[in-house]
């Protein structure tokens, strides 16, 4: 049985979160725009008032709470974990991204990253509520298992970490590119971006740290999925398209970690591997769910 009123409230909560995130994103963008030194030659890392960023962080927390409420109400409306279709994966994934971002920001200054985390979240939520929306309803028989909670929750959490890591990696690529340029010859926008971002080494370290946490979680996803597949489909590995892509993602990120550990490889090559890994995640979530025929046909569309 489903409670459609509660599901409506969940959607309302998602819309509210999107409105809050839109303002947060604007505030983050305004803050970054103010990063460039007013006078040429001024110290780019001088202390400055960052009121907009403060407001943005507050709004991000508020939006995060609204998303948690949306997930809870969606789950209550269908009396099960809300992990049964594309809309719900996107909703829970977005929630995890915001929760992880807020959690890390309690210990470290992440105001520079806000725009690049809330932007993708807003995009995902927009796609989820319009294109991928699925009515609240019961699960397919093959999904009725406690492994759903374990496997899909960890998978979604790992993808959330990979998403933040992806944003940081892109910023690292940009920062490295800017570092190679002559600061006196830089255009105003490049100076602004350069001043807004933390040093290249710190970006690199953050990206690696996020990947290093996400990779074991992804390994766990793979193992838990295999255990579940053994129970539901009779074999732990069936080369189903979703399994293939989960494996591809695992292999690409494994290559990234190896490349990082090998001195012969430049950080840039490792970065490209990380970006390729996230490309595979996007394909796994969209193309594989919607277009490939397989046993993971749970998009609900």
């Amino acid at each position, binding site marked *: 049985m*489903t409670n459609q009123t509660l599901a409506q409230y969940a959607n309302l909560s998602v819309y509210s979160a999107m409105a809050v995130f839109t303002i947060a994103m604007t505030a983050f963008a305004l803050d970054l725009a103010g990063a460039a030194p007013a006078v040429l030659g001024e110290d780019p890392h001088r202390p400055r008032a960052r009121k907009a960023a403060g407001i943005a962080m507050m709004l991000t927390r508020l939006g995060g709470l609204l998303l948690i409420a949306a997930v809870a109400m969606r789950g209550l409306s269908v009396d099960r974990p809300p992990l049964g279709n594309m809309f719900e994966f996107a909703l829970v994934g977005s929630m995890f991204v915001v929760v992880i971002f807020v959690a890390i920001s309690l210990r470290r200054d992440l105001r520079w990253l806000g725009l690049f985390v809330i932007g993708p979240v807003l995009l995902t939520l927009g796609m989820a509520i319009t294109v991928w929306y*699925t*009515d609240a*309803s*019961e*699960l*397919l*028989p*093959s999904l*009725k*298992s406690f*492994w759903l909670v374990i496997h899909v929750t960890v998978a979604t959490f790992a993808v959330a970490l990979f998403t933040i890591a992806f944003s940081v990696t892109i910023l690292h690529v940009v920062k490295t590119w800017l570092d190679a340029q002559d600061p006196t010859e830089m255009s105003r926008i490049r100076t602004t971006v350069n001043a807004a971002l933390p040093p290249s080494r710190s970006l690199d*370290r953050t990206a*690696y*740290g996020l990947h*290093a946490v996400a*990779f*074991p979680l992804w*390994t*766990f996803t*793979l*193992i838990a999925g*295999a255990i*579940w597949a*053994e*129970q*539901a*489909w*009779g*074999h*732990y*590995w*069936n*080369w*189903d*398209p979703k399994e*293939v*892509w989960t*494996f*591809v993602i695992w*292999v*690409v990120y*494994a*290559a990234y*970690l*190896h*490349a*990082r*550990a*090998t*001195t*012969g*490889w430049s950080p840039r090559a490792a970065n490209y591997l990380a970006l390729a890994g996230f490309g*595979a995640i996007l394909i796994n979530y969209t193309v*594989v769910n919607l277009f*490939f*025929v*397989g046993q993971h046909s749970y998009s*609900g*569309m």
Partner: protein
Amino acid sequence: MTGSRMDTRPDESDVNQPVLGFVGTGRWAWRQLTSMRTALFLLLLLAIGAVPGSIWPQRNIDAGRVADYLASHRTTGPWLDRLGFFDVYSSPWFAAIYLLLFISLVGCVVPRSKLHWRTMRSQPPRAPRHLERLPEHGEAVVNGTPQEVLQLARDVLGRRQLWAGRYRLRSDGLSLSAESGYLRESGNLVFHTALIVVIVAVAVGHLFGWRGDRILVTGKSFSNTISGYDTFDPGPWVDTEGLSPFRVAVDKLVVTFEEHSTGAQRGAPRDFTAYTRTQTSPGAPQIHQILKVNAPLTFGGTSVFLLGNGYAPVITVRDAAGQVLLHEATPFLPQDANYKSVGAVKVSAASPKQLGFFGFFLPSEYLDKDAGPSSFFPDLKNPALALGVYEGELYPQGRPQSVYTLSTEKMTQLRNARGEPLRLLLKPGQTIQLPGGRGSITFDAVQRWAGLSIRYDPGKLLALIGSVAALAGLIASLVIRRRRMFVRVRPLGPRTVVSIGGLAKGEDPGLGTAIEDLLATIAQRSGTKGSDTKT
């Protein structure tokens, strides 16, 4: 990860050897194969090689879709087939990638294990002269004699550390070397060795495992012998005579579909439950067990899964004299989400010519303008059979054929008075007389069938152990920090200057903090007030 490459053996430079020779070439090839660069390349190749299997249909998953693809792509299809794109995971090129990777993995793990074994049993190196030149360094003036302070450092470093285990210590006069985090490399080796175990487990499952499928109409039973299966797919080393002799009967199959929702979710399956009676061997007592999706039955190492279901209309065919020629439940195979199912009824006892019925079973029948008889819902809301009738020879030359289709090459279709192909539409309980005194067909009732898949994989436990060990090793290798700490003391009047240098392998953002903490602890324990440290 410790070094620049997985191959950590000392560099036996080949520069002095102008001609490599056979052994030299072999060694060179081995070195190339086991190098990190090759391992990375093979990893990426494996990722790329796996992708085609998700794009094109695969024979081992759905042979029917492969046949459809080949039929609709007459030029590209055969080429893709020749290149193995429909059997990617058993194709020679895919096997080549993972076998090379496997060898590369072994070639990496073995020498590194040897090296790690030696490192584990050796002492940390002597403290370097200039600790301030190390990546992280800190210094403090504390109370106490140099010997006392050094002993304090020994005590503090000798305690168990979070994430790093105990420091291994070495003293040389007024200096101290400490090293920790050996488990990082141990974890790394466990991870790579466990991957080898997983690959071996997969191979064991492939060689000794088997899979059988059986469509079982409710009320019937089957025994675990080769003849009990519709299809049986054994590994090359399976003893097909030695299957465990269990027996499964399906008494009832309860299926529910989404009734309340509208839109795409309407008609989506919600629950499949089979009520079974099982026996572990022919003489054993019967046990009532419930079989569901996600809840297989197990008999020792063999598991019975409920993977499909469908309808089996019970059909009776009589000859003109009313004699029963055929009376059985005939399984029809679902073709779409609303269980429009296809099947055939073969009446080989009919004379003078054999009779064959071919067509659809529709659980909720309606007449679609374009597609003809169709089903609007997967459950039994308006069950009907839509059949065409053929007569002639059912089994030309006795060739094996599918039970769900008619081979009509030696048969002709019956026509009605207007010369159109004869089409029968039967509802449950209905009987239709066939033209020309060929007898009658009755649609008695509808039963359900359960699609059972029975699997035996002796490698699966090993695969599980291997993958859990791999995960544990991976976490250890990512979390544990390999650190060296060097402590040097020198007297300064009645007090002592303690100088600490730190060196890490790989990423270690916490090293500086660890040195500060160590200095603070020594200062506190030696009774030094205020901070005199500088880092």
